[in-house]
């Protein structure tokens, strides 16, 4: 497929990235060429091939339902760009 700037805009919205008009142009061109590269896979017959999401055939890793010491309140908030000592703070979630 040929990527358009509209396609790229839509993806940017999903990915929560902002681009200037110029950047958008450049990304559309670059992504277009990368998509061309990956579309080579279209040549491969994958009928009936089970997708491989994990590199190794392993399964079932469980832990016991046991408490484990977490982070102190201070440590939890320490890297936060904005907090009030209790909560993480963000610009208002609700807009009216």
């Amino acid at each position, binding site marked *: 497929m040929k990527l358009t700037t509209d*396609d*790229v805009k839509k*993806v*940017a919205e*999903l*990915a*929560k*990235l*902002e*681009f200037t008009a110029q950047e958008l142009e450049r*990304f559309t061109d*670059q*992504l277009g*060429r*990368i*998509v061309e*590269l*990956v*579309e*080579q*896979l*279209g*040549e*491969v017959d*994958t009928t009936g*091939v*089970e*997708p*491989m*999401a*994990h*590199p*190794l055939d*392993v399964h079932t*890793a469980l*832990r016991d339902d046991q408490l484990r010491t977490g*982070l102190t309140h201070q*440590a*939890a908030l*320490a*890297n*936060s*760009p*904005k907090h009030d000592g209790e909560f*993480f703070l*963000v*610009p*208002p*979630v609700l*807009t009216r």
Partner: protein
Amino acid sequence: MKLEVLPAVTLASMIAARELTSREATEYFLSRIRRLDTNVGAFISVDEEAALRRADEVDARLVAGEFSNSPLAGVPIAIKDILCMTGSATTCASRMLEDFRPPYTATAVQKLLDAGMVPLGKTNLDEFAMGGSTESSALRRTCNPWDPERTPGGSSGGAAAALSAGLTPLAIGTDTGGSVRQPAAFCGTLGLKPTYGRVSRYGLIAFASSLDQVGPLAHHVQDLAACLNLIAGHDRLDSTSLDVPVPDYASELAQPLAGLRVGLIREQIDNDSIDAAIRDATLRCQQTLSGLGAELIDVHLPHTQYSVPTYYLIAPSEASGNLERYDGVHYGKRSYGDAGSPSPLEAMIARSRSEGFGPEVKRRIMLGTFALSAGYYDAYYKKALQVRRLIANDYQQAFTQVDVLLGPVTPTPAFKLGEKSGDPVQMYLEDLFTVGANLAGIPGLSVPAGCNAQGLPLAVQFQAPALAEAKLLNVAHQLQQAEFFKPALAPSFAH
């Protein structure tokens, strides 16, 4: 004494014998970093005080009789700045995490600490490990100690450069599509990507979770073996880490290679894109192996040509999800949107991400988001997972005939800084020979193979079935013994 040319295990035995203290060794390398790293740019951060404090502590504990079973106690090591260490900045070479101080330590690093190793500092990388030249680092430019105009490779470019400039005796990197092996090849060191799940990923800041793996870089095969022994093993904090006993890698190094079946990957060795000197290096390696009694067999990995497109769908898709956590809310960079935007929250998230990530990271997030989005999932992401299985099957088939595979690491030796950074497709095609091992989850080892006419390092790659790291190390050690390669610093750092 020139400590930078000694094997790390030798340094450790000197320290254990009190011929040298850990503090002296640490001071030695810190002083080299202080003097020389301005020309290399290998480190993002060096905490001299913490390193020396740590060295003193290890010295005291060595005197008290601790670490008696630890082959690397007291030895300094460089850590790629993508592995978390409590309290020390872990940046991923990104503006996004410039001020991030993790409240916990990666399992692999913790194991090194538990074994008495001394972290010198954190090495540079491509931003979030996305790249093959360390040029996408937002914080530092690293050059190749063999030629300052050339890239050290990437993403573990800082680790390989630090080693080849003699700034550390050992380094820890991570490999998602060749990020340990390719910079090792460009900088003339050894670099091992272990089997997926052999080393815990806990505390390794994720790029592509089904491909990422922690691996050591070193000059000497014994060092690689000793270091892998320390970091390998099951971790209950990582569901994907393998619960399989760890062999004593050092004890298998001396095995003779007589009867070893070595597969020559025809699609790779005969590839048109491959540099003549690299093809020659591969041939020379075949001859040496043959002289050591190994049997050389032609093998085919028919889906090799699809490994780059497959990788560049799977890795960005996983990355797009892994990097969604960087939203300016709980940690990392926050930037506010324009005043009066209809949703200040969404504007904050988008602005933080747009200012926090560099272009290569954005490119991959965009590509991955696209490949996973409604209407494209089957044609792109799912298709890539299917071809991945075919690639893995090729390997499986090959390993019914041979014990290890031989091929190149890269099509060319180190390229010039800026040479490919304008063209992402060209850059991605560099990964042709390395991404297969990540897709299939098998181990791969980059072994130095002398230099080309311009004096740039060359390398060959060995790959083995899952969990057969011991075989890879055995082969490399025998090649070192046979002087197929000699551990060497970059010439201008060897005086």
